[in-house]
């Protein structure tokens, strides 16, 4: 090591930190441990994906339920029409029998 390097070493001798440094570090650590950890970008994305999926599932379930209700209503209507039609047919049949009995 030459003279210049010796001078450089003397110039770069370690310096004492301010007395408040260690206290400041410990204080910041105390503060950071009290605060809830901030959401990272990845975690925000994950939660957003879960929320979107939940909304989609809800929308699909609601649509499916609506379709089932509509099918049920249609079936009930058809059943009612069928019963009505059977009753009318029966009435016509009876009316026809009575008319035929009078003619004979």
């Amino acid at each position, binding site marked *: 090591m030459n003279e*210049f*390097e010796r*001078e*450089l*070493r*003397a*110039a*770069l*001798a*370690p*310096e*004492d*930190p*301010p007395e*408040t*440094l*260690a206290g*400041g*570090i*410990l204080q*910041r*650590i105390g503060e*950071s441990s009290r605060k809830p950890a901030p959401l990272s970008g990845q975690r925000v994305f994950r939660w957003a994906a879960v929320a979107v999926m939940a909304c989609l599932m809800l929308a699909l379930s609601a649509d499916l339920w609506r379709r089932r209700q509509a099918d049920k209503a249609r079936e009930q209507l058809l059943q009612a029409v069928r019963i009505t039609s059977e009753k009318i047919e029966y009435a016509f049949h009876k009316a026809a029998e009575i008319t035929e009995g009078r003619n004979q």
Partner: protein
Amino acid sequence: MESPEAFERWRNGDGSAFAEIVQEHQRMVYSMACHALQNRALAAELAQDVFLELHRNRRKIESAGHLKLWLRKVTARRLIDCARKRREANELAGEPAAIPDPGDPLLRGLLQRLVATLPEPGRTMVILRYQEDLDPSEIAGILDTPLLTVKSTLHRSIALLRAKLEAMAGKGVGR
């Protein structure tokens, strides 16, 4: 100087042991930052950030020796990043503000200021070499840089320092 006992206690969750670790290493971290930035407030802030990062990464630290290496590595990385940001923001105009320390001999103060003007990563290499007394192979390990690159960068940085010092001496500053 290294305290494996405090390290083990800290690893096992003893918060008070971290205070001992800070006491033990703060001089090294702060001095590296101070020599590079030539600004005591910024150096203290950077040192705080380094120790906070250490606290967050305590599970990754394997031993007391690894702790010291980790601190040097993270401090060096932050100093290089800091210089890059300042350069990008065009803030590195002229020489950095000198630390007012009237007790220093003239040459020592001048060399400190000149080291702070060196381009990175040469500046950090010079600090690791002459403040921390590390040899080039250790610096290469800390900065993840090939040994030959470290040697040539150190050589260039010293030559640059000499040239700057001689130029200033020619203008009547220094010896």
